[in-house]
């Protein structure tokens, strides 16, 4: 036990003396929080709408006014021909084009239905659908206004109106959603990548030879390499959380103890993985490649950007062994909804099981190598 303490002292001294590492430990959480969290959002801010008015009537102008007035659209161009309109889509200067044909207004009084043409840049399918549905709802509103102003129909639409409310995040602030996610990426990077690199480094440089000759036991060596990053991971988590709270006023509804407790279990799981991967690499670069491969997959599959229910069954089954998926869910539930132990017991249990399994896997692999 005492030997471990001496080793830990050495590790911390070395970390402190590495200017890069020391700075990184503080800067990385800060930068990630401040820069990434606001950036990551699916929320659409502003759509570039181009309008071609071939009708030139008060009716058409009213429609355009309604669109201009909406905060969602920004009327960016007025192309004069179909070709010009298409070019705008190609160049990306317009996301969506509305073409009002000649005779639009007169069709309101006539037999035919009034026509409108819409061209949408659908490279980003979700954005396209959202813009499209927004446009049609504005058009529908306009339609109703016209009918009402002619006194032809009751002032309210017959039928069911939906009234949506958003709990826990009434403003649908994406930062609330992404901050827990970015925190998870943060501790994964530290717990898996940094810890593992540190493990392999001594192997690669060769100083491990010297340690092998000493009475230091293997478990002590591993513990000394892994414990510092466990501690650093938790510290950075606290740091990131504080920054998030100060900068973005993120709510924290649940129990801090529960939050950090789960993070600790997660760190153990991830450190186990780091150890396991380190047995497969003799240089830092090799380790990085293996670890990065898995980290990427884990993070992408974890539901960080989109909910895991939307994923196909095979993906959801994969997530049973994906520690990042669990922590992602737990973090969001505890932070934003105040979920309690009984609510997340299932996830927590699964995560603990994973942690134990990964450690066991790592130890087996390590013994085999040695």
């Amino acid at each position: 036990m005492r030997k471990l303490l001496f080793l830990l002292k050495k590790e911390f001294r070395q970390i402190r003396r590495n200017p890069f590492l020391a700075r990184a430990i503080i800067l990385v959480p800060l930068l990630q929080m401040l820069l990434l969290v606001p950036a990551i959002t699916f929320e659409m801010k502003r759509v570039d709408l181009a309008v071609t008015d071939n009708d030139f009537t008060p009716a058409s102008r009213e429609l355009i006014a309604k669109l201009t007035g909406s905060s969602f659209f920004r009327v960016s161009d007025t192309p004069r021909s179909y070709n010009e309109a298409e070019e705008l889509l190609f160049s990306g200067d317009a996301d969506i084009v509305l073409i009002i044909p000649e005779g639009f207004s007169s069709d309101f009084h006539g037999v035919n239905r009034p026509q409108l043409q819409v061209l949408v840049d659908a490279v980003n399918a979700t954005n396209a659908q959202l813009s499209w549905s927004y446009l049609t709802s504005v058009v529908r509103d306009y339609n109703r206004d016209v009918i009402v102003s002619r006194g032809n129909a009751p002032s309210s639409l017959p039928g069911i109106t939906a009234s949506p409310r958003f709990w826990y995040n009434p403003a649908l602030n994406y930062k609330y959603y992404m901050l827990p996610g970015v925190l998870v990426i943060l501790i994964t990077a530290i717990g898996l990548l940094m810890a593992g690199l540190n493990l392999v480094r001594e192997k690669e440089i060769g100083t491990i030879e010297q340690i092998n000759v000493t009475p230091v036991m293997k478990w002590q060596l591993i513990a000394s390499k892994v414990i510092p990053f466990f501690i650093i991971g938790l510290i950075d988590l606290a740091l990131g959380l504080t920054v998030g709270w100060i900068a973005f006023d993120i709510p924290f509804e649940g129990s801090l103890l529960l939050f950090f407790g789960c993070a600790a279990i997660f760190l153990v799981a991830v450190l186990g993985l780091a150890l396991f991967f380190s047995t497969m690499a003799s240089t830092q670069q090799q380790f990085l490649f293996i670890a990065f491969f898995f980290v990427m997959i884990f993070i992408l599959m974890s539901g960080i950007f989109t909910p895991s229910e939307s994923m196909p069954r095979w993906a959801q089954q994969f997530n049973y062994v994906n520690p990042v998926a669990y922590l992602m869910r737990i973090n969001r539930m505890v932070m934003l909804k105040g979920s309690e132990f009984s609510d997340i017991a299932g996830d927590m249990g699964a995560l603990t099981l994973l942690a134990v399994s990964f450690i066991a896997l790592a130890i087996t692999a390590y013994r085999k190598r040695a």
Partner: protein
Amino acid sequence: MKRFMAFVRKEFLHIFRDYRTLIILFGLPAAQILIFGYAVRTDLTNAPIAVLDNARDEVSSELILKLEASEFFTLTHNIKTYSEIDEIFKKGRTRAVIIFPEELGARLKREGNATVGIITDGSEPNTANLVAGYTTAILNEWSASLTAGTTQSMPLINTEVKMYFNPNLESQFMFVPGVITLILILVSALMTSVTIVREKEFGTMEVLLVSPLKPWQIITGKVAPYFFLSLVNVVIILIMAWVVFGLPVRGSVALLMAETMLYILLGLAIGIFVSASVQKMENAIFVSFLALMLPSLLLSGFIFPIENMPKGYDWVSLFLPPRWFVDIIRLIMIKGAGFSFVWKETVILAVMTVFFIFLSARKFKIRLGEGGR
């Protein structure tokens, strides 16, 4: 020249002998394509919702059936009281609760209008939005069917829509260009910087410098394999995208490959620059990862559109090479645009490349002038 080729060959063999390098080179893009193509969905499928039916009449039953039948939703709970809502949300089992008020049918008949409540779990804003949106759409549809064919139906404007570039509205289209960009930066910048710094750290760089090879030959020899590997990688990704998703290259393949080569050069130049500025391998990894990978992934418009980001970001993204390249690929691959549409971005990338080559050359000259450390 012969010495140079021998050196390059050695570097190649070095790379291929290591299965781990191959994992990253080929396994990772394949995995990413599959994940982005099949797993990550930004739209809604089988979202779990619950229902609080206080009406319990024909209307509510019909509507519940309609919701259940839709592919967007899966009905998980039928709760009895309002207070249960917070509970099931906290458990994370449900995304939304649809509340049907008492006497729904009767109210509808009497006043012609009624309100249905939708309470969504806002902790996942994207889902919440979509759930609210789709539910509203389904309700609207049902309402429209009420008045169809009656004198109350109004002359509805007919809007004809044409979805350009992606008529089937598939999400792969947005991602594949990003995957290419990411892999290229990873291979050309990260790998290059690590492999050069490795020689520096182990002192073998000095051995090379003393050899008959000139410094520029050493550097070029080290990065040449990664240049070719990156190209091969891109071709593989394109083929995969074509075979797996039917995603074509609508524009000129030659132009696409030319732009790719430019971008790879840029990546290599950055990698060399990083390796000249850093002494330890793990620091090279670190810098490449933080300064190149993460921004490529998150700030380049790969997954999250730049227009959606807050004000200062589009400004910052101007300095990120991946941002320009993603644009170029999208334009060429998906929009089928020609050079006239991408010349601006190309020039910017070219300028960046020259800039980094110049910087690296200067840094290396200074280093070597000091006797090579």
